[in-house]
């Protein structure tokens, strides 16, 4: 087990190196002159030359990459090409909104998926299971942004129960924040819940056919004790890894949901940066998101080894 964790840690820098090459390299594919984007239409050759020197574009590509890598490792994710603000500070500024949304969505997703998966698995091939499985199948096929818009249409526009969009920090006005948080978190949460409940169900089915469940039943345990005490705990293990991978969908999903609900987080930051062709921000945010994703998955994998003592790598 320690070997596995060690191997993951050894592989990590190699993956990170490739990752940095991709993030750095892809940006060089942009057609056109980056200095023209920064200076706008009325740029002189002299001005562009100066900016090129400021941005380090006059140096060889390898040197540019080295400088960039050094900055990144010290927590400097670059600067905006337009406003010249540091990307790290922009991310920190937008992070609370995104984290609020992500945590709420994850909570809703887990609260729906785990019980639904347990019931569907325990009552497999009955009408309850059919209803839950059909809903999950539909949930996987439903575009998050469409579900979000439908929520706005019904709850925000038709019945006017909730404000249709916008963000208020939790620390400023908790009630208003939760009101505005409800719809985007529900839209994103259900999109996470659909695949998660399917994994939970199949995990339950696997566990329920195991010998130790038969033993538990044979010694006369109540069915509820068998399900909750023995089956669920083991079935949850397989869901933990899925949860790590779902974190990626969560990150991608927030970009789209933030656009639907005008939620001013990291997603809106990168979208507005794309519109302004501010590749400094695009690069920084993508790198930040990928690093977070890698670390979360590493954490989940390591955690998994500790939760399940049977696992040996």
């Amino acid at each position: 087990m320690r070997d596995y964790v060690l191997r993951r840690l050894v592989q990590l820098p190699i993956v990170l190196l490739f990752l940095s090459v991709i993030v750095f390299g892809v940006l060089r594919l942009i057609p056109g002159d980056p200095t023209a984007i920064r200076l706008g239409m009325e740029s002189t050759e002299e001005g562009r030359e100066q900016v090129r020197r400021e941005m380090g574009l006059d140096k060889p590509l390898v040197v540019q990459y080295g400088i960039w890598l050094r900055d990144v490792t010290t927590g400097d994710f670059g600067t905006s090409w337009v406003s010249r603000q540091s990307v790290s500070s922009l991310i920190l500024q937008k992070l609370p909104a995104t984290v609020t949304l992500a945590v709420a969505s994850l909570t809703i997703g887990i609260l729906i998926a785990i019980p639904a998966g347990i019931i569907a698995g325990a009552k497999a091939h009955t009408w309850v299971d059919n209803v839950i499985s059909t809903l999950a199948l539909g949930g996987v096929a439903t575009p998050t942004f469409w579900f979000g818009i439908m929520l706005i249409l019904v709850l925000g526009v038709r019945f006017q129960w909730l404000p249709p969009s916008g963000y208020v920090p939790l620390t400023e006005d908790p009630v208003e924040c939760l009101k505005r948080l409800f719809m985007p978190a529900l839209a994103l949460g259900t999109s996470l819940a659909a695949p998660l409940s399917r994994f939970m169900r199949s995990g339950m089915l696997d566990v329920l056919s195991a010998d130790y469940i038969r033993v538990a039943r044979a010694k006369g345990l109540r069915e509820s004790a068998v399900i909750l005490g023995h089956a669920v705990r083991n079935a949850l293990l397989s869901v933990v890894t899925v949860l790590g991978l779902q974190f990626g969908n969560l990150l991608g999903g927030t970009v789209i949901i933030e656009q639907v609900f005008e939620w001013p987080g990291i997603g809106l930051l990168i979208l507005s940066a794309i519109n302004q062709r501010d590749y400094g921000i695009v690069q920084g945010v993508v790198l930040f998101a990928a690093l977070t994703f890698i670390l979360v998955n590493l954490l989940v994998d390591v955690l998994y080894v500790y939760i399940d003592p049977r696992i040996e790598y």
Partner: protein
Amino acid sequence: MLRLKRNKETELAVEPAKRLGQPDVPAWRGSSRLRRFMDTWRRFKRSRTAVAGLVVILVIIFMAVFASVIAPHDPYDPAPRNILQSPSRDHLMGTDAIGRDLFSRIIYGSRVSLQVGIISVGIAAVVGVTLGVIAAYYGGLIDSLIMRFLDALLAFPAILLAIFVMAVLGPSIRNAMIAIGVIFIPAFARITRANALSLKETEFVEAARAIGARDSHIMVKTILPNCLSPIIVQASLGVAYAVLVEAGLSFLGLGAQPPEPSWGSILSAGRGLMTTAPWVATFPGIAIFLCVLGFNLVGDGIREALDPHLKNI
């Protein structure tokens, strides 16, 4: 996992025995392939949901091919007199902000979705399968390099990677195909590699090597045909996800550009019309839902038909 292995072993054990009974090897090969296909088809037919999914896909393909015949109106033709009409007999799904018939636009939108879905998965399959077979066949340093590079691609949350690529390449349908293709490469490569690794050790590959077949011949003619089934399943489920991602990109304004009718961009236009014309946002969502559901059901159906032991997922 265990079940899957056992199944493969029995399959391998049965095959030489079958071969003994057939004197004419080429004839046996042809008819056996046909028989195996018919077997799979018979099992596929047994699942009502899979057949329903296939019907949905066929309807959408029919819509895409005969769009110009079926569509009652020109999808590009603005009619200033018919702005934002609610659904009626003449306009089954109403009209949009410049009076175009929504039903016709959604019929034409199926072309964009299918085109992006199929071509992007095609790109991913060709690149991914090639990388997977090469990694498995040569092993060692080549394997490590390819797999770490793919790990780095996997380290990006999928939608975010697509957004990143689109941001750099610029918005268009062709670029959306490339971006979505890129995010699927690791999945195809990993599946192919896993299968090719076990095939590499089999006797028929050894036999091919013994008679002096070139590496490329072994990879393409011997290994590849035997790991096709999981690739087909992955492709079908991949198209479903690709349609969803294309809709998402177009919704964000990064995919299809106006006036091209894409389900995602029609939805995006409908977001601003929620109070006046809720149908503009509603119908394209239903179209995306049905299309994704269809490919998911067919993918699940093929998986179950190819491997009857894998019932749980």
